[in-house]
């Protein structure tokens, strides 16, 4: 990192940049006798995120916090209601539409439901060959060798090529999904709970595979998970979401060792740890995203809440270089 004066000679734009992104869904719900009302639900409510090339970021947060919506915005599958979502300095929707930008080839996605994302009537070899053909990445003669190479790279035995998804285990199906994602030689890999629900040994194998690919291909990685161990193993940076906001972000191990935001601290305490007593659960319930309280949205469950938290909505502010949190009374981080 060189001089702060570098602003004029702009450094390469980050792969992704979200500037105060809001995504509001209109939801209708009953409002008294025979009446329905339409309300805005802010699935994303002012999200700022920078994903530099070659970085790895874990997105963590409980269900409904907006992780999947954030991914949809990054992939250009939905437009933000407000704010800007940029891919290499250019609005994502525009980049996605412009064939020349190479967006669809450059950004690959591994879905949570890997089996559901694969056509059950196609053999593994064809599933992996599909993106190679689609992007015209090799000649028909080169195809079998390239497919074999990709399968080997994700640790699948060659005989898997002729099988159909139904004849593969959960771990093998995820490997096929990864091979397909890598076929287009992307520089960005986005994954939604890509290793959850797998046996620990399979999960460990896949995490090592992803870590090695990140290293050897210089991939930029964005990884949604609710397992803090997975986040710490795979990603240098972490962003914690709560009800449509990023409430804390920074280097993964620093954040998890000394969380600044009380919600991060609660996640840390709730995550399983050998022989420790089970954490005292957070009190209260998550507020409904259509009826957010004024002030801090975590206040109803926060053990550190004070009077001002009910009235002031804390913004994400810098605590120390590289670390930000949205809290009026953050915990000491020792930094």
């Amino acid at each position, binding site marked *: 990192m060189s001089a702060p004066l570098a602003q004029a000679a702009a450094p390469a734009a980050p792969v992704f940049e979200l500037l105060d992104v809001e995504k509001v869904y209109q939801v209708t719900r009953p409002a008294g006798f025979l009446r329905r009302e339409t309300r805005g639900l802010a699935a994303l409510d002012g999200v700022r995120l920078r994903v530099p090339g070659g970085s790895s970021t874990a997105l963590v947060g*409980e*269900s*409904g916090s907006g992780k999947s919506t954030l991914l949809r915005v990054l992939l250009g599958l939905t437009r933000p209601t407000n704010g800007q979502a940029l891919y290499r300095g250019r609005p994502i929707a525009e980049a996605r539409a412009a064939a020349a930008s190479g967006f669809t080839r450059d950004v690959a996605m591994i879905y949570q439901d890997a089996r559901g994302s694969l056509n059950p009537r196609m053999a593994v070899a064809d599933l992996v060959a599909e993106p190679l053909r689609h992007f015209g990445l090799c000649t028909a003669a080169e195809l079998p060798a390239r497919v074999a190479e990709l399968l080997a790279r994700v*640790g699948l035995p060659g005989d898997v090529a002729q099988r159909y998804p139904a004849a593969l*285990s*959960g*771990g093998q199906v995820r490997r096929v999904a990864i091979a397909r994602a890598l076929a287009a030689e992307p520089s960005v890999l986005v994954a939604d709970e890509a290793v959850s*629900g797998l*046996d*620990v*040994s*399979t*999960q*460990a*194998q896949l*995490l*090592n595979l992803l870590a090695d690919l990140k290293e050897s291909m210089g991939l930029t990685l964005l990884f949604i998970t*609710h*397992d*803090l*161990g*997975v986040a*710490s*193993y795979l990603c240098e940076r972490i962003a914690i979401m709560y009800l449509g906001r990023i409430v804390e972000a920074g280097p993964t*191990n620093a954040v*998890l*060792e000394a969380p600044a935001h009380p919600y991060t601290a*609660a*996640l*840390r*305490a*709730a*995550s*399983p*740890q*050998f*022989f*420790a*007593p*089970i*954490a*005292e*659960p*957070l009190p209260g*319930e*998550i507020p409904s995203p259509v009826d957010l309280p004024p002030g801090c949205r975590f206040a109803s469950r926060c053990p550190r809440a004070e009077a001002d938290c009910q009235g002031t909505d804390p913004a994400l502010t810098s605590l120390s270089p590289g670390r930000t949190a949205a809290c009026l009374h953050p915990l000491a981080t020792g930094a």
Partner: protein
Amino acid sequence: MQTSTADPLLSVSGLTLHRGARRILDGVDLSLGRGETLALVGESGAGKSTIAVALMGLLRPSEARIEGRAELAGEGDLFGLPERRWSGLRGGRLAMVFQDAGAALNPCFTVGSQLTSVLRRKLGLGRAAARARAVELLDSVGINDAAARLSAYPHQLSGGMQQRVMVAIALACNPDLLFADEPTSALDVTIQAQIVRLILDQTRARGASCIFVLHDLALASQSCDRIVVLYAGQVMEAGSSAEVLKAPRHPYTRLLKSCVLEIGTARLEPPAGGVPPWEEMPAGCRFASRCPRALPRCAGEKPPLTQEGGRALACWNPE
């Protein structure tokens, strides 16, 4: 495993279960004292859920052939009971919480009617008494504004809330033994901690026992007194969860433990491969095809489950 407790509630011996030609469970022994919590752990296909549904009497003879005994205190061998008696036990002395509460609750009925129908059917309560008890139960599992929630349908509740309702239904008749089959693996960590705490607090308060099916060894160490490590239908190692997990002696327990990620883990070294398909399962120790300590005899000869100092171990060449 012989019981290590003075006051046994359940003792299972030689439980073998066939589905067609496959021996899904192969001579499983386990026992559980009153008020104890036991974790069943092992990779997918180990037979953890099969043990739970077999002990709940949920398998028809046409689906599975069962050998062995399961003594429940005051009841005798469960596998010798007529179906009439089983249906009295289920939802009575024996109860179960499933992994996916959303699928286990009936979407067409309100939470209140699902809860009160259990209370009326099993405890013979009248309408008003059942309703009052239902409110108490929902309140005890941490559902705010319980009276109003009685009229909610399952889809109107979050996943964590649905699982709380399942726990309330399971506890409605004060069971002696609660099975919780991965009750939290569909939930986030904060909700997971809440639900596990809830199940432990509620079963402890009633002096009931609990069998948890878990895939997270760290969570097992936090929540269960004892642990049974299963692999492809065979018990590999069992004992107090503190002893087994602090100093595993079985190569498979070691493998499982070596794959656990904690915050700050530097490098995992998982062995390649996984559980073999049933057609390729070794006849002796089923772990032989993946075991780093396998001896020539292991694949052909099944090691007996031997007892020593409250721990059980099935291995020809333990650490």
